[in-house]
């Protein structure tokens, strides 16, 4: 929980107000209000199709919202490409399917953003890549191609690749769902460490053990709504909403 980490800052990192999103006529997100503060770890859960991915993808504009306002670090997400660029530099994202670039070595995957977005010299980008690979525990894989790594290793490279941007916020969309059970832990360990170092994180996951341990706040979504928002302690012991209870009973007694 938040108290584990140094400094409990009140600065707002993400602010979403009355946001609505439609895919054609289908409303995927309804009246979303959400505030995330610096160094907070927010875990989002909910049944399939409830709009979790859509929610975090609107935060770096992989999806466009139609109503309401979204601020990231005080910059509003609008159609202004400048703002989108600024925000994407601040926000890193890790996908369920890793999405590493198969034609580049692991090191070059990580170096791409520092070189082309942060405009760093090559040697510096290389240094960053090596440090990050060290940090996620696979320095020896630097010159391999993604196809040669295991799923867990690939996801750790993907995390390193996002961190190379030195983002202030990290979004995780079910980072462990595509992994075999024995690889889940190595990825969660990296994420846990990241949280301890004070990264602001928004995590969509069904790993309730991880959530209980690391999250500062739980969010439960259903049918496009944020149904319940609570600290993990309350969320897991006495949830208010019926739907949350049902979901938890299904996911925990499995």
């Amino acid at each position: 929980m938040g108290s584990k980490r140094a400094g409990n800052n009140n600065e707002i990192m993400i602010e979403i107000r009355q946001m609505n999103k439609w895919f054609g006529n289908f409303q995927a997100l309804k009246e979303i209000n959400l505030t995330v503060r610096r160094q907070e770890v927010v875990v989002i859960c909910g049944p399939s199709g409830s709009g979790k991915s859509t929610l975090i993808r609107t935060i770096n504009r992989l999806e466009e919202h139609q109503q309401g306002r979204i601020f990231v670090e005080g910059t509003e997400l609008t159609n202004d490409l400048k703002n989108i660029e600024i925000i994407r530099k601040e926000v890193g994202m890790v996908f369920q399917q890793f999405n590493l670039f198969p034609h580049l070595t692991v090191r070059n995957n990580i170096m791409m953003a520092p070189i082309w977005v942060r405009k760093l010299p090559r040697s510096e980008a290389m240094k960053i890549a090596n440090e990050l690979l060290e940090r996620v525990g696979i320095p020896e894989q630097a010159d391999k191609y993604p196809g040669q790594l295991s799923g867990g290793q690939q996801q750790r490279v993907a995390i390193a690749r996002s961190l190379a941007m030195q983002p202030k916020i990290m979004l995780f969309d079910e980072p462990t769902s595509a992994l075999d059970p024995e690889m889940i832990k190595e990825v969660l360990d990296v994420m846990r460490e990241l949280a301890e170092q004070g990264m602001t994180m928004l995590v969509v996951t069904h790993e309730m053990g991880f959530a209980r341990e690391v999250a500062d706040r739980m969010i439960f979504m259903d049918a496009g709504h944020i149904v319940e928002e609570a600290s993990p302690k309350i969320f897991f012991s006495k949830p208010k909403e019926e739907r949350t209870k049902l979901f938890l009973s299904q996911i925990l007694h499995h």
Partner: protein
Amino acid sequence: MSGEIIGAVPPLEAGPPKMNIGVVGWIRMNLFNTWYNSILTVLSLSLIYYTVTSLLNWGVRLARFTGVKPEDCQGIDGACWPVISDNWAFFMVGTYPYELRWRPLMALLVVVALIMLAVWPRIRRMRLYQLAWLVSPIVIFIIIKGSDTFGLSQVDTRHWGGVMLTVILSVVGIVFAFPIGLMLALGRRSRMPVINILCVGYIEMIRGVPLITVLFMSSIMLPLFFPEGFNLDKVLRAQIGIIMFAAAYQAEVVRGGLQGVDRGQEEAAMALGLSYWQSMVLIVLPQALKIVIPTMVSSAISLLKDTSLVVIIGLFDLLGIANLVLANPIWLGKMFETYVFVAAIYWVMCFSMSRYARRLEIRFSAGDR
């Protein structure tokens, strides 16, 4: 910096913003979403307008449909469709004797009837029905070629032509090329060096040269290979060339399928004690062939288009008939009508097959999951 940074948000109307849905929304999103897309849309619309109106003017408004006499077409700006209607039978069956044209028609009826019957799954599963398919090529051949035993007078293949010849060349081509291709594909995978080299050599040689050289080979060189006095019919020679050509391509298609089957399948079959041929016929080939059915339909489409090359060696397939019609002084200058019509026939055949292939592909990929 603490607390809320956003003030009150204006109350919301229900439903998605108007500009994103409905016809108007669709048009905005897909046709006018940026300034250059708007320009492209306007350009495309004018191109479509121009093409469609000039085609309609030529093909319908200014065209002559009836007026059986070719002279009626003189001095018009539109199409002269009598060139098609007058030569209809010609386009369909070539110079097949006039009084015997009921025979190709009957062959067609046999095929159509067999296809229609396939609609009922119960009939489709009947032995008799499957047998009918098996013997249908022979029946059709006898109907078209004629046979003294059945009291049908012989029709020389010189008189075969038009759509009939195109279809015969392609169907027979595929049917015979398939087993040869299958053998070649197995040979190419074989670990016996001699067989491997023979098969690879054949496949790569045929695939490396244009079809027309293969057709020249079969029509000019083949007669040299046989003893004096052994006469091979011209259509048959072309057919042999087409089969030789198609077999090499079929081999590659089948090989693709064989590569798609997990090695483990073959090993499992061997482990069960099946012989090479048993494991191939019972285990590997059924899976491999299922994967490649869509590709096989595509290669059938290519073959259908490729049969048009037989014009160059003097056969009168559909394209050959088009040239023959145009060579007739009565129909001089009716090139657009003739080529457009012939192109339309090819197009309908190829396009429907390609749609069918795509449907199969979707069905198979859905079945895999």
